[in-house]
């Protein structure tokens, strides 16, 4: 109740200020109370791990052994660790594929499902099933399908006359195969977001374009695409964060192998922390990994701001 009273108070001063200034500059403050609980909670859950991670990254510590201060040694070790650098490059490669493929396919799917046709609702439901399914569970099913001798995928390939593939069992094909699963799973999310954008499109530009005799592609390129771009940006941000952090699917299907062929940063981190118990080094990996994700997300967020809905 007192919180509500406080809200009333701030609201009054806010309204007064607004009437005086007529500007939106002071809009921020009264809404702080709406945001506060979420901020406090997030801080509570994540601040300790951060501090812990930062502290540990400056120490040499393996579980079951004594801990000692190591300064920046762990970070220097990262600089010289070829396996880490390959993992970083692999992560970017994996993420690039796992962002672009769902974005393209998701847009196509959205254009299809935007039209009216019988059973549209049900079929759309079927289409979005993969993103709802538990990654660990579908990862296991995909593993079975990838099996080079007994898997159903190779059966399907060979039965239509294509050569069998080793899928995730070969260093050369493992990442594209994993991205295939990731794309299978996350194209629906992109589709939903873009579909939301398409539904909001005004009809007038199309009508006038049609009168001008524009082709379907020209209409997509010059009208649809710019209008759904902000939605695509949102999808791109979400996909980038998720693709860089992708873990469950890789862990379940290939565990980073064969060899290190699908060892992304997250898998490398897992290895250091939970197989080697090298908590100090793993913490340094987290710090760098986190910096990478933040950089990528901020870049995209900046781009999103530039393509506001109101644009």
């Amino acid at each position, binding site marked *: 109740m007192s919180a*509500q009273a406080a809200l*009333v108070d701030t*609201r009054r001063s806010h309204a007064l200020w607004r009437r005086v200034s007529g500007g*939106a500059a002071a809009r*921020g403050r*009264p*809404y*702080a*109370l*709406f*945001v506060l*609980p*979420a*901020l406090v*909670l*997030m801080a509570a859950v*994540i601040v*300790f*791990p951060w501090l*812990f*991670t930062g502290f540990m990254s400056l120490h040499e510590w393996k579980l079951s052994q004594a801990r000692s201060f190591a300064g920046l040694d762990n970070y220097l070790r990262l600089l010289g660790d070829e396996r880490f650098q390959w993992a970083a490059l692999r992560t970017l490669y994996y993420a690039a594929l796992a962002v672009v493929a769902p974005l393209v396919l998701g847009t*196509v799917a959205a254009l*299809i499902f935007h039209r009216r046709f019988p059973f549209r609702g049900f*079929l759309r*439901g*079927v289409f979005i*099933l*993969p993103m*709802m*399914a*538990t*990654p*660990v*569970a*579908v990862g*296991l*099913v995909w593993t*079975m399908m990838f099996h080079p001798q*007994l898997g*159903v995928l190779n059966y399907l390939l060979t039965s239509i006359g294509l050569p069998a593939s080793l899928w995730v069992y070969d260093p050369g094909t493992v990442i594209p195969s994993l991205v295939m699963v990731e794309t299978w799973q996350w194209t*629906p999310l992109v589709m*939903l977001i873009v*579909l*939301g954008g398409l*539904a*909001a499109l005004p009809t007038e530009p199309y009508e006038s374009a049609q009168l001008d005799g524009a082709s379907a592609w020209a209409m997509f390129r010059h009208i649809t695409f710019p209008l759904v771009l902000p939605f695509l940006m949102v999808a791109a941000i979400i996909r980038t*964060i998720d693709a860089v*952090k992708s*873990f469950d699917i890789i862990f*379940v299907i290939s565990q980073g192998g064969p060899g290190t062929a699908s060892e992304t940063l*997250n898998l490398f*981190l897992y290895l250091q*922390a939970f197989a080697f118990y090298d908590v100090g080094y793993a*913490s340094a990996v*987290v710090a760098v*990994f*986190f910096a990478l*994700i*933040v950089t990528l997300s901020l870049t995209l967020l900046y781009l999103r701001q530039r393509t506001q*809905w109101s644009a």
Partner: protein
Amino acid sequence: MVGVRARRRLRRLAGRAGFAFAVLVMISPALMVFLWMISLSLKTEIENIAYPPVFVPETPTLDNFRHVFEASPFGRYIVNSLIVTGSATLFALAIGVPAGYGIAKAKAYRLAVLVLIARITPNLSYLIPLFILFQFLGLTGTLWPLVMTHLVITVPIVVWVMIGFFETLHPDLEEAALIDGATLWQAFRYIALPLARPGIVVAAILAFIFSWNNFIFGVVLAGRETRTLPVAVYNVLTFEQISWGPLAAAALVVTLPVLILTIFVQREILTGLTAGGIKGG
């Protein structure tokens, strides 16, 4: 004249067939994987590793499901998952919806970034610190650690979806209410909130699903009594040979609730997201 009309009809028909084909191509990967999953779960092990593969089981059997439920307390895992995911989703809505509103109204995107950092941080990095923290607090062995860590997943989703949603809500009504003397809270509670219902539904569904599907928190933070479903599925992996039937059965048990939910609420998900886009429309 007739020829032209016939040709036009033919072309329309061809267009329709082409479109139907495109729809088929779009949904077939999803359909095939799930049908294959069902097929695996209903077959004996001998049929499962037969090559060429057996698609339709000759004598469908529920043995794989029986095995899954006999080999481990799957019923308890289902309850655990429901409690963890349910609490994490409800709690996230309670604090995330107002937060999304506040951020959207105040255009405080820096705060949004702060909330999103939780989503950006690699989940693995929470595990060791949080395990030690929960151990210190004496919470290990209960479902609390899981509920709390799942908030890391659910809160950012809710906030993120709601920001986008409230951003696009027309401000006129609330402003009118504010001028009439309503408090900010009242404007939110009685005007923005009802309008945002479709968005809240989407946020809830997405939060629920991502929390339900989470694997890695459960691996480390859950114990024998508190295990959640995704971890339990992974544990169905046997020591011996590849054993696809029980694995597929377990996978189906975990995914079925969300799959059914999806089919039923796909319209809500969609209207929620599209309503988020009805700006000035």
